[in-house]
């Protein structure tokens, strides 16, 4: 461990705000990249299921 305490870890010397902003933004972008295709897939399957049901009724 490079830090003596948790508050020191959060402070990152004087660079806390810079380091933590970077990590927060980057992890948010990574999460978005995972979430978007999952949501898109779900929406696509729902639309296709609806279309298939419609075609069966005809």
């Amino acid at each position, binding site marked *: *461990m*490079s*830090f003596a305490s948790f508050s020191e*870890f959060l402070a*990152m*010397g*004087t*660079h*806390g705000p*810079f*380091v933590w*902003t*970077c*990590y927060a*933004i*980057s992890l948010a*972008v*990574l999460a*978005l*990249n*995972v979430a978007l*295709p*999952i949501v*898109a*897939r*779900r929406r*696509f*399957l*729902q639309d*296709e*299921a609806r279309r*298939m049901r419609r075609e069966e009724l005809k």
Partner: protein
Amino acid sequence: MAARILSVRAPDPALALMSNLMNWTWFHKLGSPKWFYEISRRWLPWLAVSAVLLLVVGLVWGLAFAPPDYQQGNSFRIIYIHVPAAFLAQSIYIMLAIAGTVGLVWKMKLADVALQQAAPIGAWMTVIALVTGAIWGKPTWGTYWVWDARLTSMLILLFLYFGVIALGNAITNRDSAAKACAVLAIVGVVNIPIIQYSVEWWNTLHQPATFSIVAKPAMPFEMWMPLLISVLGFYCFFGAVLLMRMRLEVLRREVRSSWAKAEIKAQVEKGL
């Protein structure tokens, strides 16, 4: 005469392998959407698990356990995302150019799927590299942005990604869109060596490369090992997200085929 017939009937195994490779069946299989859909189902969980493990180990090690830099203090910990994202941003663009070439030369449909689906991920990685670089620049250089050669060429990379994405969305005819995107990806690849050598050609603010394949790292082990792990984690992350996106796009394009219909039905019945 008899001996000659015998030699034809029992071919050399090496020759047989060569003729197998030379009739390119493996290459055409790679272009088959159904085959890709099935094989990627097996790859995806491994890539996803490796990405999570490597990213957690690399980032926690880099954030909490690596020693602070003697000049930059703790702000240097930003490199554990900045460098992997920048590596990936450039690698993905090279991949776009390769996929574009394969698509143009062999008319492989899957190459176009790969190109279109990798471009947004590449753009996001470029954004991460630029934003983290800017935030790191403030305490280190005293400014968020300078028109340094490395920074400018990375900004051009972002615009190239935007160009590929916009071109793919703007052209409704799929074959024309694929061709246009492939050409743009191939032409734009000249920017990659410019990014790579910008820190050597123009001696401006950005520091030279942190990592080199040929030289031993200048950093101590506790500093470069987490960076290496994080880089690998980012590559696995890209692989997993790319497969997720490509699988959806393949299903979309093949929606009329019987295997895709069966797959959609099975997925819907499973409760999505």
